[in-house]
């Protein structure tokens, strides 16, 4: 704009001095008039185009501090009219706060001292509006007298926009600072461009220590290799990259985990400008998750422990009772044997006496030999059964818990399911008949046995509870729980069916939600099925679904792939 105007503007220096000088020789006839082109247009002789009248910049000529010429743009800017009396003091229109500075600036110009090219100042229009302008004074000769040509451009809108931008930027800075997430900007040369407060707090490094420096030289206490790998992936795939469980170890604090997502940032023109790392310290969350899973495990173990105690105490009770009986019976029988031994002795030596025979008779009657001979074999038989029962439970517990195994191994699911059914026996035996239909040719399935047993257990316990709800006080009919396994395509399917009341329509889509529970407060963490879902779907790449009909029962279906997928 300035360049469009400047040919028409007299210039005291430079190449156009000649024409400017001629233009300035006789402008007074029409000033103050409605047109300034004769005064200011260097070519007023040849063209009548009143350039000064048409430019958008406000132009005034000031002599001895008085405004003696104003172009229409000036009038518009200051809300003045051509009829207003002039000359006025030029400085009258200038905001009070700016007057001294502007005056000095103009004086310096007049003295041809070095000044900034432009001067920003505030004006007050006649109708009281504040306007911000950029002003450029030039010393000219007007009517033979030295004068100052002042060109002003209204930058009110511009400066308002700039102010708004500054405010917005400041607001954004505040927002970014307030974000409780780690926010790190990296340019394409992997230099850090952004490092927010959370990043400072997380890593114990101030923004000033890292911004502008290459990422790998900043000594950020994190798993740098994992980050560099992620950055490389982000650059090559040009997609958002999510990295979880990045270890970090801030000085003087405990080691923790970060979850970060990396996003490629592009300029308006589509060129890559950097990568934004956004993330959080997920240590607490991971801890909570594992505690929650642990709590659920403990809950079912607690339940199991009470049940297992009962399952073991019962046989121990009758094994103990039988042993006591056997001890006393043996004692009784050995008394009888002694009499028989005496009888034998007598027989070998001569004739037995009647007293020995009667002793045998009395003792046999007193100790009830018939009872003993009938009871002892049963007592032994039942004791052996009891010992076997305890052994079965203990074996099943060992199978069930699989201490230590956190990896996927090939598992005989049928055996695992049988163990789980055994350890949970006390939970279902009062409410259900257990029917197992396990495919004998089921292939081994890669899975984490402890976790999968937990899934089967959670579903079994839910099934037992579903059956338990039906019964009132009297003698409710026992329901049935059926567990079956099958190979289906390239996976296996475990189906656990109960004949309970079914899952009400209203809660069907909630049952896998964490914390959802139909049990009374304080009973159950509401994690059982949520964790089962996580284990089956996320850990094993399988599916956990259910079929249910109100009044008929529910079937939970666990599908597990036979081939190991990376997870």
């Amino acid at each position, binding site marked *: 704009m300035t360049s469009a105007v400047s040919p028409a503007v007299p210039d005291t220096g430079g190449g156009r001095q000649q024409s400017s000088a001629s233009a300035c020789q006789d402008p007074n006839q029409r000033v103050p008039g409605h047109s300034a082109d004769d005064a200011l247009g260097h070519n007023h002789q040849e063209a009548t185009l009143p350039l000064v009248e048409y430019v958008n910049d406000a132009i005034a000529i000031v002599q001895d501090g008085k405004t003696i010429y104003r172009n229409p743009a000036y009038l518009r800017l200051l809300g003045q009219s051509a009829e207003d009396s002039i000359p006025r003091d030029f400085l009258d229109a200038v905001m009070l706060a700016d007057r001294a500075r502007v005056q000095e600036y103009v004086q310096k110009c007049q003295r041809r001292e070095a000044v900034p090219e432009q001067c920003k100042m505030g004006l007050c229009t006649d109708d009281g509006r504040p306007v911000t302008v950029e002003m450029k004074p030039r010393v000219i000769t007007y009517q033979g007298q030295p004068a100052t040509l002042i060109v002003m451009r209204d930058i009110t809108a511009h400066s308002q926009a700039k102010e708004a931008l500054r405010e917005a930027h400041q607001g954004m800075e505040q927002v970014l600072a307030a974000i409780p997430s780690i926010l790190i900007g990296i340019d394409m040369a992997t230099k850090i461009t952004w490092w927010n407060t959370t990043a400072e707090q997380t890593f114990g490094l101030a923004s000033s220590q890292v911004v502008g420096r290459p990422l790998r030289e900043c000594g950020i206490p994190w798993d740098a290799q994992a980050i560099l790998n992620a950055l490389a992936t982000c650059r090559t795939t040009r997609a958002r990259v999510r990295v979880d469980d990045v270890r970090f170890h801030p000085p003087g604090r405990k080691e923790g985990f970060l979850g970060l997502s990396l996003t490629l940032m592009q300029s308006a023109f589509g060129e890559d400008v950097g990568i934004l790392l956004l993330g959080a310290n997920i240590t607490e969350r991971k801890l909570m998750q594992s505690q929650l899973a642990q709590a659920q495990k403990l809950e079912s173990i607690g339940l199991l422990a009470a049940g297992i105690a*009962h399952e073991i105490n019962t046989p121990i009770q009758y094994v*103990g009772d039988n042993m006591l009986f056997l001890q006393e019976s043996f004692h009784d029988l050995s008394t009888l044997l002694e009499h028989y031994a005496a009888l034998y002795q007598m027989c070998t030596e001569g004739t037995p006496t009647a007293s020995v025979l009667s002793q045998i008779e009395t003792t046999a009657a007193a100790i009830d030999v018939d009872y003993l001979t009938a*009871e002892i074999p049963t007592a032994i038989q*039942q004791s052996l059964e009891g010992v076997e029962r305890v052994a079965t439970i203990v074996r099943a517990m060992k199978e069930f818990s699989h201490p230590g195994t956190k990896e996927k191994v090939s598992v005989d699911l049928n055996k695992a399911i049988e163990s789980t059914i055994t350890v949970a026996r006390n939970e279902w035996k009062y409410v259900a008949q257990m029917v197992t239909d396990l495919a004998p040719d089921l292939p081994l399935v890669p899975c984490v046995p402890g976790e999968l047993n937990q899934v089967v257990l959670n579903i079994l316990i839910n099934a037992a509870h579903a059956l338990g709800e039906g019964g009132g*006080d009297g003698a409710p009919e026992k329901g049935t729980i059926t567990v079956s396994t099958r190979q289906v395509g390239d996976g296996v399917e475990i189906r656990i069916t109960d004949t309970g009341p079914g899952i009400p329509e209203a809660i069907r889509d909630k049952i896998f939600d964490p914390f959802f529970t139909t049990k009374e407060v304080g009973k159950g963490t509401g994690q059982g099925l949520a964790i089962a879902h996580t284990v089956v779907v996320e850990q094993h790449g399988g599916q956990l679904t259910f079929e249910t009909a109100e009044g008929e029962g529910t079937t939970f279906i666990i599908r597990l792939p036979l081939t190991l997928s990376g997870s």
Partner: protein
Amino acid sequence: MKKRILFVDDEVNVLQGLRRMLNPMRHEWDMVFVESGQEALALLAQAPCDVIVSDMRMPGMDGTQLLTQVMERFPLTIRIILSGYADSNMILKAVGPVHQYLAKPCDAATLQLTVARACALRSLLADPTLQGLVAGMQTLPSLPTLYLEVLDAIRDPHGSLERVGDIMSRDISMTAKMLQLVNSAFFGLRRHVSNPGEAVKLLGLDTMKALLLSMQIFSHFDQKQGGAFALDVLWQHSLATSTCAKRIAQEQQSDRHVVDHAFMAGLLHDVGKLVLAANLPDLYSATLVQAQAQGTTVWEAERALLGTTHAEVGAYLLGLWGLPDPIVEALAFHHCPSACPDQRFSPLTAVHIANALVHTEDSTEAGGTPAALDSAYVAQLGLSERLPTWRPQPGRAA
């Protein structure tokens, strides 16, 4: 006459084991074994049983449901649980209707002793009506102020076990109930505790909350119904007796158990009065009035009007509840210690002397002459000279 014992368990092997193990008792006990609650009730309807020993977890009707029905329909039967199950919610529900709780595996001696003791109690209380009344008592009324105080303490979010225990230690009924809980295997404790405060600490705040608020194991005494019976007077007398009995036992260099039992028996020695006043308020009030009018001791009037005494009633209840023998014995014989088979120094000695000494100090208790000291018994134990030193100081009730 043979005692009839009914065993209920859903596990046939357990029943057969019990039958074999208890075979030596066949001459004293007539034992019946059934596999379900329904069968047990049917059998009881045909012929009464002295004691029922039931499993807790059974399909259909569980042990608590069965024993609750037995309590309502056959109150004379003494109710014992024999269970290997440890779920505390289930146990809490059993606290009311169950007299004693045995944990599986239970050794033969404990089971035999528990059943035998229960059978022996029968001879303490001849009258079947009273037997039924006592056996049906799930709670004993407490002093209203203490009852409110303990509810307050247990509901206080900042409440402490110490405070709850402290309040209970001062109440006769709460002490009795807490001792029932810890002397039986209800919560798997079954150990000697020296006072209810210790019992509270063993059970923990959550269990105490459940017991008090959900199971309502305590109740409060309605003085309006009491007539001539004044619980607060009884309470003051009992506190003074327990303090005095404890001091006597201590000064006799008794071991810790004897001191603890003397203290608790002192507090509980008149619990029978509370049972009678709560169950037969009019009759019992009349008894007290008569004792006053005729100048007899309360227990003599009881004997005349009720055919029994508060000593026997109290001993029967605490015996049913499985409190330690020395306490039951002290209660049963606290008026006539010479009748006790054991003539050595025991909690009974301490309670008998303390009771008599406290009575001579304050004779505010309603009705009759105070219980007399059995001088021959005291002399035989060589304690006559010590008596003056044991007199409770006035104004030092608790």
